[in-house]
């Protein structure tokens, strides 16, 4: 008879459990037990179906667990009643470990409250640490998740002798780098682009990339379905193939297994799907979701990114020198007018994560580590408190012959069990924490990260290590203390050693002092971050973001191939929008603040001054009404006039002050390159726009009268890609919510083929600019509150234990005439003294740490008096509150009752 699925499954699980729990039992005996179990489950299934099988399985599992731990089964399985000689259990050699595990379980279960508290603290501490480690690993430690990431490099173009670099190289000479087999094992090219996908779902412009055959192999990755691009694919006629991301496969094909070979209409052409990448694969940036083939030859135009893997045995320094030496020779062969005539080698991923992000992540990492240390200190204190309660038990075991090693082994096993339980609780908490981190980490942090935040092998190893190390460290101290105690002292009922010895009490107090010191660091850091955040919010943006909309437009090459066609569209579109109800003003520009315009990294040469190299200037091509529409205040001079030449520019106040610190910039002249013959006249100075409010470096802007309809496309490949140009519109409205649909409709009516990238509220963009600082503040406040609670709990625990242990002395003092209030004050002062010592140590540590992290704080000194003062007050209040109840307990002690109990 064929067994039901539920019975078969239960039998399989029972067989596996038997193998684990009773390894010494013979195979035939196990088979017999499994058969009996199966018969029982079958009977349960006949009575109650699958639920019946489930219920029977639960009962059998519990019975098996009891059997393994020898809980109660011994008595049930005895042959004779207890008066008979005790039977020895048949057990193989080395059973002492199981005995220890059983005893450890029993002793842990006697203090369920302490066990629950220790497990909860450890699980929360480990889960928080692991989640933050996951973020740090993805963003900072291993931003490049490919095999041997230290061997992956990119070749950039550089201006010889200067720091000016750009991450692209001319496409027509790119292949020459790949041919340098003395430098690279393999390499490939990539060009970010967009793909207009119009079937298997709604039409959408998907961020994509063109990649050359061999690039994925260089990275060390391969599709989970299908294959990568083959040599020759990417050439005209052989380029109608595409590789999907996991997201596109899910959204457009429903994750069907036979997706390889199906077609997808991309940019108007039917492309064959040849592969699907892994779910967490990201390249060349975090955005790309589709990959198309690319082949470059000597006639290729535009620019490309080159990624290569260094030859084995070649050090990065030697490779850097060889690339710099070869750069001018290769760059000279390009037909493009190109000022970057050198080359530089850059580690893949090193430029994707900014220094500020790194420092932020390390700050969070350090805070989490501190929190974990506090958790361990608290658990250690709990262990010491339990040691006091169990000192007689330990003493009896010692008197009966248990060696110190045996006692330590018992404590070790106890802590291992606590760690295992904490690990089981921490695992789902960590998964939840990682999902939360993935949702809450600001997009700006994740931009460019190739490593998706998630639970991987490394994180799992870290978690297991933490949950084993933390309870061991926390439990080792009480174990060592307990194993060293005097047996006689602990066995004497009239022993008056309160917490064992004065040394033990001092040790516990010093643990609390350390906790308070850690809490100080967390609280002061959070206070500094908080004050920094408040200051950032008060920064003058330089323009008026209220009721301002930013509209991003993309022009398909097929319908807007020329400048004139794009110019006409912009004229018609702005004319329509200007007449919409609720629209105050509209102006086109190559960027709407706070988003940067085109950024150039060249030399800026003021007339009569030496050139300043590598100056990043954000350039906006604007109409005369730009300043009024966007609300940028003109400090001096005038805005550009209609049809004014592009050499009549308006500078930001920051740029003007940099070039002419003691004089007005209006009327002065400057060039954008030392080699350029064109001088630009400064006709006005505008307020500096703060593109990044929390950046201490002044941003530099220049406003150039718009001469052509469009800027050159920002993508190196756009000349041959699907998009021929971009433009932004700044629209000042009365009611953004009501006007946005009208604007979209007006743009559609002007020409439906233009892709409206976004219609965004600028004040939302401004608010999102603070997502990073807000995220940091939220986490730091959370850690600080947790630290405060832990330290307060530590103080409360120690004082409560002290009062409990000293009740007899308190009773004697009260009998001898001591004032109850004096007793209470003594307890309070003890608690506050602990806080004060911890405060002192913590302040010193914080002062040192704050200096290192000073760059993270905006307009706030690392030794900000307010922050330190507030933290001092908070900790003293918390310490007083924690000491209050033990003090009251001591004050209300009844000396007669205490002495009667003795």
């Amino acid at each position, binding site marked *: 008879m064929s067994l039901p699925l539920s019975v078969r499954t239960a039998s399989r699980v*029972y067989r596996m459990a038997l193998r684990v729990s009773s390894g010494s039992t013979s195979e*035939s*005996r196990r*088979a*017999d*037990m*499994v*058969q*009996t*179990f199966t*018969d*029982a489950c079958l009977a349960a299934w006949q009575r109650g179906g699958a639920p019946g099988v489930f219920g029977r399985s639960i*009962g*059998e599992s*519990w*019975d*098996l667990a*009891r*059997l393994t731990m020898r809980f109660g*089964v011994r008595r*049930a*399985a*005895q*042959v*004779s*009643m207890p008066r*008979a000689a005790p*039977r020895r259990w*048949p057990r193989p050699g080395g059973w002492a470990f199981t005995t220890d595990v059983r005893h450890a379980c029993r002793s842990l279960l006697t203090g369920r409250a302490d066990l629950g508290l220790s497990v909860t603290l450890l699980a929360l501490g480990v889960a928080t640490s692991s989640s933050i480690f996951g973020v740090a690993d993805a963003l900072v430690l291993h931003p490049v998740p490919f095999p041997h990431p230290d061997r992956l490099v990119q070749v950039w173009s550089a201006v010889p002798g200067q720091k000016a670099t750009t991450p692209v190289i001319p496409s027509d000479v790119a292949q020459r780098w790949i041919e340098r087999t003395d430098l690279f094992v393999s390499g490939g090219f990539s060009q970010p682009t967009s793909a207009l996908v119009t079937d298997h779902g709604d039409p959408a412009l998907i961020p994509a990339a063109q990649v050359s055959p061999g690039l994925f192999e260089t990275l060390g990755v391969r599709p989970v379905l299908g294959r990568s691009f083959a040599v020759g694919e990417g050439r005209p006629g052989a380029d109608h193939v595409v590789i999907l991301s996991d997201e596109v496969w899910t959204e457009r094909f429903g994750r069907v297994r036979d997706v390889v070979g199906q077609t997808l209409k991309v940019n108007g052409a039917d492309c064959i799907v040849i592969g699907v990448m892994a779910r967490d694969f990201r390249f060349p940036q975090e955005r790309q979701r589709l990959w198309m083939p690319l082949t470059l030859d000597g006639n290729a135009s535009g620019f490309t990114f080159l990624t290569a893997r260094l030859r084995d045995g070649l050090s990065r320094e030697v490779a850097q020198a060889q690339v710099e030496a070869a750069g001018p020779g290769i760059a000279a062969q390009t037909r493009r007018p190109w000022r970057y005539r050198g080359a530089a080698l850059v580690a893949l991923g090193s430029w994707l994560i900014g220094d500020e992000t790194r420092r932020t992540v390390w700050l969070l990492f350090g805070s989490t580590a501190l929190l974990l240390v506090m958790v361990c200190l608290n658990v250690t204190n709990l262990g010491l408190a339990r040691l006091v309660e169990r000192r007689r038990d330990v003493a009896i075991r010692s008197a009966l012959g248990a060696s110190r090693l045996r006692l330590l082994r018992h404590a070790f096993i106890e802590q291992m069990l606590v760690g295992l339980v904490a690990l089981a609780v921490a695992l789902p908490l960590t998964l939840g924490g990682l999902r939360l981190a993935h949702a809450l980490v600001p997009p700006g942090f994740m931009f460019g990260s190739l490593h998706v935040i998630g639970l991987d092998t490394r994180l799992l190893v870290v978690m297991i290590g933490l949950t084993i190390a933390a309870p061991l460290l926390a439990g080792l101290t009480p174990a060592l203390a307990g194993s060293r105690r005097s047996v006689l002292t602990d066995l004497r009922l009239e022993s008056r050693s309160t917490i064992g010895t004065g040394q033990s009490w001092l040790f516990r107090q010093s643990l609390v002092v350390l906790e308070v010191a850690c809490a100080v660091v967390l609280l002061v850091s959070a206070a500094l971050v908080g004050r920094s955040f408040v200051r950032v919010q008060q920064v003058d943006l330089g323009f008026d973001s209220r009721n301002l909309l930013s509209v991003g437009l993309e022009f398909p090459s097929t319908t807007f191939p020329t400048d004139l066609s794009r110019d006409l569209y912009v004229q018609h579109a702005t004319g329509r929008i200007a007449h919409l109800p609720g629209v105050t003003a509209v102006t086109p520009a190559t960027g709407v603040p706070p988003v940067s315009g085109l950024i150039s990294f060249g030399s800026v040469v003021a007339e009569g001054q030496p050139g300043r190299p590598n100056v990043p200037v954000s350039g906006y091509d604007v109409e005369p009404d730009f300043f009024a529409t966007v609300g940028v205040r003109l400090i001096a001079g005038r805005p550009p006039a209609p049809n004014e030449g592009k050499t009549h520019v308006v500078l930001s106040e920051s740029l003007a002050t940099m070039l002419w610190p003691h004089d007005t910039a209006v009327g002065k002249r400057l060039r954008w390159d030392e080699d350029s013959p064109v001088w630009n006249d400064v006709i006005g100075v505008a307020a500096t726009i703060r593109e990044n409010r929390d950046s201490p470096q002044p941003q530099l802007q220049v406003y150039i009268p718009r001469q052509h309809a469009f800027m050159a496309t920002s993508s190196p490949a756009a000349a041959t890609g699907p998009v021929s140009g971009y433009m932004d519109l700044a629209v000042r409205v009365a009611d953004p919510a009501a006007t946005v649909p009208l604007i979209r409709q007006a743009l559609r009516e002007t020409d439906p083929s233009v892709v409206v990238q976004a219609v965004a509220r600028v004040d939302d963009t401004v608010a999102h600019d603070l997502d990073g600082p807000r995220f940091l503040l939220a986490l730091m406040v959370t850690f600080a509150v947790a630290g405060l609670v832990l330290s307060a709990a530590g103080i409360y625990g120690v004082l409560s234990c002290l009062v409990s242990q000293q009740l007899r002395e308190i009773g004697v003092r009260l009998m001898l005439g001591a004032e109850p209030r004096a007793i209470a004050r003594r307890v309070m002062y003890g608690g506050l003294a602990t806080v004060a010592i911890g405060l002192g140590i913590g302040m010193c540590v914080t002062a040192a740490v704050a200096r290192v992290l000073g760059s993270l704080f905006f307009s706030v000194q690392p030794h900000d008096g307010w922050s330190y003062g507030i933290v001092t007050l908070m900790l003293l209040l918390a310490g007083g509150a924690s000491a209050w109840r033990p003090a009251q307990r001591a004050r209300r002690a009844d000396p007669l009752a205490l002495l009667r109990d003795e």
Partner: protein
Amino acid sequence: MPHRDVDPRSWLPLTPLAFQALLALADMERHGYAIMREIESHTAGRVRLRTGTLYTLLQRLLDERLIEESDARPAAGDDTRRRYYALTSLGRRVLTAEAHRLEGLVGAARRKRVLGRPSRA
């Protein structure tokens, strides 16, 4: 394991579960699940053994040589993984001794009118 004295009274009193297990094997050889069912039937469902407890008890009884494994297969085609158990002669004597002991106790209870009027011998 040291050999016990062959006097069956030295095993007495048996634990209730041990007595039930031996009683289940008194009339015929049985496999593990059948022993479970037999005990459940004897006790009107009050005692329901789980597999782990049963086999720990059976191992104990095997060690004490009160039961032994049997090669007999009541039905052709029976699953060969099932192992059948039978009373040894020692086990039968122990079971009988325990049954007599319990009978004596029940008789004493009857004489003291705990269970009603004593039956005439």
